[in-house]
Each structure stands twice: as structure tokens, then as C-alpha cells.
């Protein structure tokens, strides 16, 4: 399979949307594009399985084209199980994101073009095997986010005067997100240059080629210097404590589709980068720094959970809980046992689906009730049963109910973490496990207040339930969550490395 197709399809769709006339044309062309992409991703999964069953190992479907010859920079793509899983996740979230954006009226063409462009960056990132290509695609995704949040987002100005949670304006959030992510990529950039110049000896041809670097052992002192650059750089994307502050503002201000993409895919770019680049290429340094990573991850998990308890805005609740959940990803990566790392990747997938579903549900509620404050909502189950059910499913997945994907991923991370012996590691694992209780508290409380009980505002009685497109989006993501929750073996088999 020609993997470049996966980058080209979103790009071509974006260009096609540019030439569309009318709102409906824009919507349907985008939907067609992301559907084709989803089918392609399924095709990739099937082909990958077949290839693997035939004994294929390592990176498959590789293709290389020289880009900047004198610098030995190549356009090099290829996939292993982890990339296939991430691509599939992206395709799922994108279809759902386009479906829930059906109601975007203002500047809809620009909206869909940016969204598609953003997804193209993510696909390219997951496919890249050349570190230059990877960095290129990582940075591609920063600016569309800025524009999506800044133009179509919702900030403090949209909310009523009685909003008690201090909220940032959308422009502020967009700027903060763009600058922090850019800071992350600046660190990644320095790290990549360090790696590049330490390959191939003093005068020899240096390389950005991932498989080549993975085969040669990078010198230990190089690893020690540049591992923090790469890990922290990518870590900023995945809300590494203390660089998580862009997450709540950015996610809450973003329009629904962008929130879904941000929390579902963008944060995973960081986790994937930490794993693929920092840990795989620098195993020695990863072992040395592992305790630091684990401490930071545990802080993020516990702090994120406690901070969520204090939130009154549904989007902020999900955003802060994302920090906590992404902590599990970093915890799994930091533990460095095979099970924990697989668990971390599963958590990326699971959190991607779950948080996208959650944001979709919140977006649907917000579109109708025009508020996201927990205290103002209530009794939604009576007026919009479908949306409320979706909300509950997402919530239960978030708190790790068996049968849903969250449970599978978290239990794998915990089991993997327990394999790492030593008091500090054990303590971190216990703390992380304990945080689930807090998760249960805030999820159940939010669910109880918004969904159950009497209808707070008579205005809510007139609200309609989900439309077909919203239902489709929710069902799609729900299928993913349940498929992983009920039968996790296919995923863990896919992620085996």
C-alpha cells in the first residue's frame, strides 16, 4: 500500500473543499474525504495484518524519496503496529469531527479546510520514519489549531455574567496554545539536530533516518544531553507537568471539532513522539531519566484529577481530566516495561476515542443549552436521551468501567508498571491507581448534576435531541470504545513490538 495516499487524501479533500460552492457542498465533500480516509485506514489495517501473518517484521510498506540530498534528508514513510493504530484512531476521530461540525455556519469552508489540513499533518506525523519529515508534520499542525480556536472558538465573552469560573478569551487561549506548542517543537528541533550530528561519525554523512538511527547505538553522553530536549519537547504536546497549562484553556475555547481533534489526536502526537523518538532512539537515557518522568507523570495524574474536581465548566472538566489521563500515557512510557508501554499506547487510543466522544457530547449540549456550567444544567436525560446516554458512556469509559476501552488501557498500564520493581515505582503505581477513585468522583458528580435530577430550566424542555449526523458520530466513536473494551486482544496484538 502506498502510504503517501494517507497524506494526500486529506490534502486533496482540503483543496477540493476550497473550490466548493455552498454550505452543503463543503460538508459533503469533507465527509466524503474523511470517509475515504477511514476506509483507507481500515484497508491499511487489513493489509498490515496480512503482511504480518506472512512474517513481516518491523516497519512495513516503507517508501523513500530523496528530499534534500546534500543534507541527507528523505521523505521516508512506513508503519508498524503502533502507527497503524494511531492512524485508525485519527481516521475515526476525523469522521466524527466532520459530522459534529455540520452546524458550523460561518466561514464553513475555511473551517473544514483547516480541519482537514490539520488531520493531514497528524497522518503524516504518524507515518514518518525520517525525523525531518516527522518534525515537518509536527509543526504543520500548530497554526491550524491557532486559527480554529481563535476564529470559531468560544471564550469568556460568550458566556453569561454569572460564570463563576474565570475563563480566558479564545484569542488568549489560542495564542497560549500556539506559543507553548511552538516552544515544544523548538526543544524537539534542538534535540533532533543533536541526534543528527551524532550519527555517522565526525565527517561522515549524518542522517535523520529513524530505522538507521535505531540500529546504531547513539553515544551515551549524546543521549543524556538530548533526551530531555526530545522528551520535554514532545511532552509539552501531551500535557507533561508542568507544561500542561495550555490544555485546559485551549481545549475549552476550541470549537467542538477542534476540541475533539486536540484532545483526541494532537495530544497523542506528543505521546507518540516521546515513545517513537525519545525512548526508542535513546534507551539508555530513557532508563536513567525514567524516575523523573514517572514523578512528573504521577503529579500530572493526581494533580489533574484534583484540579478536575474543582471545575464547573464541562469542557474544563474534560480538559483537566485529559491532563490526568495523559499522565497515564507518560507513566506507561516512563516505566519502560513492555506491558506498560503497550498499555500507554492503548491509553492513547482509548483516550483519543473517549475524549473525542466526551467533547462531542459536551458540544451537543452546549449547542442546545448555550451553557456548559454544571450548576446550570440538569435533567438532560429527560429532554435529550441520546446525547445524555453518549455523555454517560464517555464518562464511564473515562472512569475505567470494565467493558469499555478505558479499563483495558489503564489496567494494562498498571500491570506493566507493577512489573517495574523498586519502592518509588511501586509508590507511583499505587498513587496512579488511587487517582481512579477521584476520577469516579468528578465524573459521577458531573453526570449526576447535568443528566439526572429535575430539569433545571424550563427552557431546556424545548430542546431537541441529537440529529442524524451527531448520532452517527457518537455511534462511530462508541463502537471504537466498545470494540476495544470487549475484545482488547486484537489491539494488543497489533501493538506488539
Amino acid at each position: 500500500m502506498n502510504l503517501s495516499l494517507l497524506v494526500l487524501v486529506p490534502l486533496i479533500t482540503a483543496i477540493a473543499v476550497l473550490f466548493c460552492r455552498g454550505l452543503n457542498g463543503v460538508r459533503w465533500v469533507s465527509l466524503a474525504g474523511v470517509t475515504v480516509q477511514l476506509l483507507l485506514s481500515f484497508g491499511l489495517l487489513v493489509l498490515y495484518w496480512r503482511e504480518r501473518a506472512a512474517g513481516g517484521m518491523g516497519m512495513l510498506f516503507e517508501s523513500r524519496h530523496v528530499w534534500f540530498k546534500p543534507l541527507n534528508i528523505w521523505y521516508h514513510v512506513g508503519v508498524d503496529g503502533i502507527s497503524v493504530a494511531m492512524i485508525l484512531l485519527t481516521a475515526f476521530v476525523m469522521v466524527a469531527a466532520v459530522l459534529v461540525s455540520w452546524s458550523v455556519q460561518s466561514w464553513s469552508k475555511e473551517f473544514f479546510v483547516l480541519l482537514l489540513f490539520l488531520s493531514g499533518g497528524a497522518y503524516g506525523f504518524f507515518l514518518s520514519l525520517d525525523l525531518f519529515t516527522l518534525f515537518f508534520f509536527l509543526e504543520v499542525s500548530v497554526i491550524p489549531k491557532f486559527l480554529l480556536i481563535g476564529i470559531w472558538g468560544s471564550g469568556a465573552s460568550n458566556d453569561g455574567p454569572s460564570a463563576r469560573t474565570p475563563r480566558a478569551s479564545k484569542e488568549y487561549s489560542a495564542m497560549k496554545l500556539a506559543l507553548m506548542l511552538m516552544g515544544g517543537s523548538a526543544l524537539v528541533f534542538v534535540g533532533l539536530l543533536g541526534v543528527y550530528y551524532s550519527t555517522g561519525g565526525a565527517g561522515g554523512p549524518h542522517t535523520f533516518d529513524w530505522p538507521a538511527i535505531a540500529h546504531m547505538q547513539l553515544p551515551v553522553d549524546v543521549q543524556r544531553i538530548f533526551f530531555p530536549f526530545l522528551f520535554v519537547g514532545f511532552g509539552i504536546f501531551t500535557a507533561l507537568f508542568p507544561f500542561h497549562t495550555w490544555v485546559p484553556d485551549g481545549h475549552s475555547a476550541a470549537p467542538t471539532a477542534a476540541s475533539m481533534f486536540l484532545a483526541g489526536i494532537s495530544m497523542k502526537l506528543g505521546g507518540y513522539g516521546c515513545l517513537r523518538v525519545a525512548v526508542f532512539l535513546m534507551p539508555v537515557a530513557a532508563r536513567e531519566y525514567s524516575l523523573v518522568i514517572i514523578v512528573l507523570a504521577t503529579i500530572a495524574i493526581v494533580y489533574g484529577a484534583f484540579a478536575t474536581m474543582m471545575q464547573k465548566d464541562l469542557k474544563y472538566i474534560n480538559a483537566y481530566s485529559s491532563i490526568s489521563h495523559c499522565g497515564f500515557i507518560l507513566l506507561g512510557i516512563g516505566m519502560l516495561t513492555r506491558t506498560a508501554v503497550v498499555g500507554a499506547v492503548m491509553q492513547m487510543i482509548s483516550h483519543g476515542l473517549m475524549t473525542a466522544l466526551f467533547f462531542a457530547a459536551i458540544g451537543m449540549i452546549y449547542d442546545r443549552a448555550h451553557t456548559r456550567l454544571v450548576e446550570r444544567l440538569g435533567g438532560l436525560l429527560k429532554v435529550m436521551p441520546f446525547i445524555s446516554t453518549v455523555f454517560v458512556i464517555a464518562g464511564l469509559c473515562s472512569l475505567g468501567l470494565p467493558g469499555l476501552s478505558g479499563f483495558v488501557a489503564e489496567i494494562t498500564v498498571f500491570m506493566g508498571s507493577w512489573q517495574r520493581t523498586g519502592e518509588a515505582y511501586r509508590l507511583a503505581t499505587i498513587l496512579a491507581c488511587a487517582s481512579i477513585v477521584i476520577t469516579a468522583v468528578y465524573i459521577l458528580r458531573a453526570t449526576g448534576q447535568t443528566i439526572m435530577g429535575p430539569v433545571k430550566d424550563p427552557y431546556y424542555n424545548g430542546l431537541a435531541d441529537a440529529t442524524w449526523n451527531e448520532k452517527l458520530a457518537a455511534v462511530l466513536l462508541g463502537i471504537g470504545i466498545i470494540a476495544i473494551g470487549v475484545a482488547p486482544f486484537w489491539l494488543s496484538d497489533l501493538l506488539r513490538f
Partner: protein
Amino acid sequence: MEIFLSLRQELIVTGIIFLLLFMKVGVAEYKTEVILRLVNVLLFVNFILGFWSFPDSTLFNGMFHTNKLIVLEKNILNLGTLIVSLQAYSWLKDHRQATEFYILLLSTLTGFFFMISSGNLLMFYLGLELSTIPLTALSSFDLEKRQSSEAAMKFIISSAFSSALLLFGISLLYGATGTLGFDTIARHLDGSAFQLFAFILILSGFAFKISVVPFHLWTADVYEGSPVTVTAYLSVISKGAVFFIFVQALYTVFKPMAGNWYGILVLLSVLTMVTGNLFALRQRNLKRLLAFSSIAQSGFILAGITGSSHAGDASVIYFILVYIFSNLGAFGVVSFISTQTGRESIDDYKGLYTTNPLLSWIMAFSLFSLAGIPPTAGFFGKFFLLMAGAEKGNYVFITIAALNMVISLYYYLRVIKAIFMDSQPQPIGRLHVPLLPNIAFVVCLGGIIATGLIGWIYDYIYSLSIGF
């Protein structure tokens, strides 16, 4: 015959100057628009002829030399001049002295050509002065504006000062080595304190021209006061030309002193980036903002020069090519809007997207390219510059540079925010872009998108570049 072929680029430009001169003093009166169209066609022909390759040669006992790299550099300047000239259309068509504008503009271009081609400090100085003096006249070309004359005043004084420093350095170097030829100087350099002093004076002269901190103070005022077209020319062509000769001088003439200038350049680079960026943060006027951003960009270019390798030289030339597209794209929009409405502040741009979507996207792409965001060419330009700078293993320096890219993103995004996200009661009305500026915008946009993604442009520059 060989003389004519070696000097062909200079001769064509001089030919255009004379043609304009005859048209001006001749009996027939030409409409301004006719002249503008004619000049642009001629400049286009000039650019196309620039691809005509011819063997390397040296003239006048080594005073003047040319090779493929120099021809390419001159042609990059030709391209930039063509874009500037196309963009100047909407400003010049109501200006009484359009012919004089072009005569002066092309004189500076000839000066730059001789400067880049020089193989001797005397020739270099002549070329530099040939370009500086018409530039001063150009910066006062908004004849009715006091600010413009003020800019010219500041420019001539600081230029004279920098020329004096340069001349002092050259004479000291002559005293130390007994020669003015580039290749013979290199043989006599040993890095003694006296020679180092001469070098520092020459470096200061250069630093003025490329607005490197602490010699940058003239930049913002001159950029703000001059007509926007001239500012664009100053910030791109003038700076690019001086950078071309600067790299040549460092890599060939001052090669024996590389150990001495490496540290100086790193320091200047950091100072320039940081100062340019920090001042740019607070600007409200777009011309001033772009002025400070261009100072910061100089810092990044210096980072590429410190690599002193083929990759270093190639990245500088490549970046200047990219910079021509991106900066002229941004200046083009500012210039167009400024001549049509007279509004230049960031606040005036609020809500621009609702009325002028195309201009807004051109501005956005240019600013993204300046900020180094992929897939625009600026990303590749910055990446290669810092990559060349990292070759020496000075990662503290590269980290500072990389973090500076984050700072610079802030002020570029502020403009984007004003254009796309803010609104105001009286946004700039819908503007009609005439054909010639439109061509310029298309060229800029095409360059911004294509230059990076097409790898062989860099490969070609690399194959010609110098380093050690």
C-alpha cells in the same frame, strides 16, 4: 567580447537605466503607466536572461570576478527587484517622478552587482557607495512627507558613518597586508591584534548595512519613514546583497581568522535576534514591526553563517531567496493597503479578512513563512540556517535561537489575530488589486509554497556554495 559577456547582468541593468534616461529627456512625453509597464517587462527579461550561463571569468586584474554562484545571487536580486517593481505599480502610477524612481532603483542594483562581483576591497567599496547614495534619495521619495525626508537624513548619516568605519578598516587592513585584493589579503592574515582591529572595523561597517545589533538603531526609523516600496527594497534586496558579499568575505578573505570571528558572530547573532524580537513585540505600526522582525531575521542569518560550511553558505543564500518571497509578500500587502487607504497600524487591519480575503491570506502565508511555520518555505529556510549553525556543536546557541522563533511567532500571530479574529467598526474597505501587483502576489505566494517543498532548489544552491 568576453568583457561584455562577463558583465552582461550589469550591462543589461545599465542599459535599462539609459533607456529610461533617454525617454525622460527626449521630446516625446510618455504616460506613467506606459513607462511602468515597459520597465516591468524589461526587468522580467533581465531576470530571464539571468539564467543564461557562461563560464567563470575574472576581469580587470582580479577587480571583478564572476562565477555560477555570483550569477545566481545576482539573479536572486533581479527577482526581488522585479517583485518590488511590480508591487510599486499602485504607488507609482500617481507619482510624478516614476522614471527617476527606476533610474535610482536600478543604479543601486548595479552597485550591488559590482559589490557582489568584487575581488578587491576598492571595487567592493565603490559598489557599496554606488548603491547607498541612490538608496538615500529613494528613501526620501515620498516628496510631500516630512517623515520621508527625515528617514533619508537618518539613513545618509548612518550610512556615512558606517562607510567611514569601513574605509578606516580597509585602510588599516591595507597597512597590515599591503594589498587590497581578496585572495592576496587572505595569504597575509595571521590574526594579530592589529589585523583583528581592522577586521572589527570592517565588520562594523557590514553590521550597519545588515542592521545587526548594536548597529541597528537606524533601521526602524528609516523603514517607517521611507515609502513602503523602498522599505521593502531596503529590507530584502539591500540586505540580501550585503549578506552575499559578507559571506564571501568571511569565507574567503577572512578565512584564516575564522577562530576569531566565530565567537563574535555567535554573540552578534544572539544579540540581534533577541533585541529584534523583543522590540518587535511592542510595535503597533506594521512597518516598524516588520523592521524589527527583519532585524531578528538578520540574527538568524548570522547563525547560518557561523557554520562556515557549504551547508552554511547554501542555507544563507536559500534563506535570502525564501526571505525575498515572504518579506515582499508581507510588505506588498502593507504597501498596497497603505497607498490605497493610508492605514498602517495593526489595529487598522482588524477585520481585514471579511473585506479582503485574498490579501489576508497572502499576508498570513508571508507571516507564517517569516515565522518559520511549515509547509511554507520559511520553515525550511530557518531549519537549514540553524542546522548549519549547529554543526559546530554549540547547542546553547541553537537553543537560544530556537526559542527566539517562539518569541517571534507571538508578534506575527498578533497580526494574524487582528486580521482574522478581531473586528472594528470601520474595517478597511474592499480593495481592487491591479494586474501588476497581483502578479507580484502570485509570484510571492508561489515562491512561499514551492521553494521549500521542491528539494532541488536547495540542492542546486548547495552545489554552488562555498565553505571550508
